[in-house]
């Protein structure tokens, strides 16, 4: 059965969404086509491909692509599909090449996608084959970098990347500003965390501030139980520093605030967040003061955002220098990749805290992540029941909200982030209507 425009419009109301958007495989296929394969999707960071020929391979929705540093230092994003018979020309997750040579019949392509070699060339005379015809090159995809963060867009329509990111780009700015040298570098490998749930359940949860004191109560208590057993005067530990705030009070989350903007983007936190009371890293403040002066340093470090979502594919934690990438696989299967950054010019202890945070919160071994995933699994299963057809998102609607630049700021435990994401979702899903109206 094919969903009509009207069918899809019925799935999102101002205060509720229909349960099947998480469970219906047809909706998932439409999301890949109309959202992931139709907007700016995060691929990787420029520091991952420094030298000419450095590349990485990822999927945009269901489509395999290559992000590669070209000969002139430019970044090219190419369909990972040989123009001959269609095999992926790059088979590894990352590497360095002079040219991409297909493993099947040896067609060879430059790092800008141009076909440069075909073995045993005889036999193509009087055919449509022409080595210089762009139809026989690896097809290029529109891509842009925002301060090192590379996105690609399979659609030629729509805004440029900067416009797409809007005011939410300030979270990327703040993460970069936190580096005394004003530069970030991806380092220390990647964590891949398999989630057997719909991708939106993960994204919904990023700015859901009503779940930690329920879902993560046990982790907060376990931390406290550990601290209570310590001998008097024992030094504070980074572990307790990082985990304990996940069991914070509703008041803290109310005060954190939440901001939402166009295209589904948004962030929780502001002057305060669960990251704002970490212990100082020795040497970091000195390095920041030297680079920026005391006032500017205060300004930079007073921005303590928790999660920022660049809907639908990238989520960042500026204050902790880690990012998570959302890669949907199937209606009930999602891959979450966590990458970590070094703040250039900061002491090594800063990176080590980032790694500790990522292990404790983003790793498959995380106690926090395990409890979140358990909630997502139960959502995925429970939503099949149909006892109620709707998922509620009415908390604080129209209340405790005010404009803030091009974004809207609200009380931290508002459901505004959900409403904003599903507004964007519906917009994407119903935007290109020509095919269906007919």
């Amino acid at each position, binding site marked *: 059965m094919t969903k009509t425009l009207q069918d899809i419009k019925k799935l999102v109301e101002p205060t509720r969404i229909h349960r099947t958007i998480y469970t219906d495989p047809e909706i998932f296929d439409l999301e890949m086509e109309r959202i992931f394969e139709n907007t700016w999707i995060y691929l990787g960071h420029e520091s991952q491909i420094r030298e000419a020929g450095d590349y990485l391979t990822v999927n945009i929705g269901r489509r395999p692509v290559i992000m590669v540093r070209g000969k002139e230092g430019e970044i090219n994003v190419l369909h990972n599909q040989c123009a001959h018979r269609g095999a992926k020309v790059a088979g590894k997750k990352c590497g360095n090449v002079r040219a991409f040579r297909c493993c099947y019949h040896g067609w060879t392509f430059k790092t800008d996608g141009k076909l440069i070699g075909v073995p045993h060339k005889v036999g193509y005379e009087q055919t449509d084959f022409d080595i210089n015809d762009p139809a026989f090159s690896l097809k290029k995809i529109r891509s842009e970098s925002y301060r090192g963060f590379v996105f690609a867009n399979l659609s030629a329509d729509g805004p440029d990347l900067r416009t797409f990111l809007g005011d939410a780009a300030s979270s990327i700015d703040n993460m970069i500003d936190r580096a005394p040298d004003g530069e970030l570098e991806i380092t220390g490998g990647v*964590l891949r965390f398999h989630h057997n749930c719909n991708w939106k359940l993960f994204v919904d949860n990023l700015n859901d501030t009503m779940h930690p004191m329920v879902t993560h109560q046990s982790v907060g208590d376990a*931390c406290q139980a550990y601290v209570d057993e310590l001998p008097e005067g024992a030094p504070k530990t980074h572990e*307790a520093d990082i985990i304990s705030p996940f069991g914070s009070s509703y008041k803290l989350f109310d005060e954190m605030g939440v901001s939402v903007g166009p295209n589904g983007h948004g962030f929780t936190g502001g002057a305060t967040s669960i990251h704002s009371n970490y212990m100082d890293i020795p040497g970091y403040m000195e390095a920041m003061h030297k680079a920026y002066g005391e006032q500017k340093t205060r300004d930079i470090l007073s921005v303590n955002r928790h999660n920022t979502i660049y809907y639908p594919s990238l989520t960042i934690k500026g204050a902790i220098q880690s990012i998570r990438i959302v890669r949907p696989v199937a209606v009930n299967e999602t891959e979450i990749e966590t990458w*970590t950054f070094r703040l250039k010019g900061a002491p090594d202890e800063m990176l080590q805290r980032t*790694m500790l945070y990522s292990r404790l919160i983003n790793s498959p071994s995380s*106690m926090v992540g395990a409890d979140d995933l358990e909630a997502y699994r139960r959502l995925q299963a429970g939503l099949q029941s149909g006892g109620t057809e709707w998922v509620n998102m009415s908390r604080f609607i129209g209340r405790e909200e005010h404009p803030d630049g091009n974004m809207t700021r609200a009380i931290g435990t508002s459901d505004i982030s959900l409403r904003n994401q599903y507004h964007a979702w519906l917009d994407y899903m119903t935007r290109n209507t020509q095919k269906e109206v007919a």
Partner: protein
Amino acid sequence: MTNPAMKQARNCPDVAELTNLLYREADFLDQTNLRAWIDLFTEDGAYWMPVEAGQEDPINHISIFYDDKAMMQIRQHNLDHARAPSKETEVRSSHIIGNVRLVDFDAETGNCTVKSNFQAAVYYGGQTLYAGSYTHDLVWTGDKYLIRRKRVDLINCDASHSTMVIYI
């Protein structure tokens, strides 16, 4: 070669002694007895599961696990907590350990390093088979060995993993 003039902390352990120790440790995990398991580690002990084959650095590079004793204790408290959603599903494991071999022995301290291969089936809602090698750095305390570091190299360390709610 051992210098005869040098004081020797203990004899070189044989494989049977080391194997017993590894069996005992795995048995505590299979009983989900974290309290007893943690006591097998030195105060500066660590449990490390790298995310890359041959990974050398546990602190400037990400790992799946790199727990000190503080983290082990927090996990133990969490496992016992009545309201941990992820712990409502019971977890059971069964470890098989083999190919135990001594790779390093320091006669002066009695400390040694033991490598072994393992397969661990973990049942947690569904069943998952983990396989790989262990490297145990052991410290001789005068009457027994304690673990200074247990390194767990999964053969699929860099794969996408679901929740790991217990040490392997």
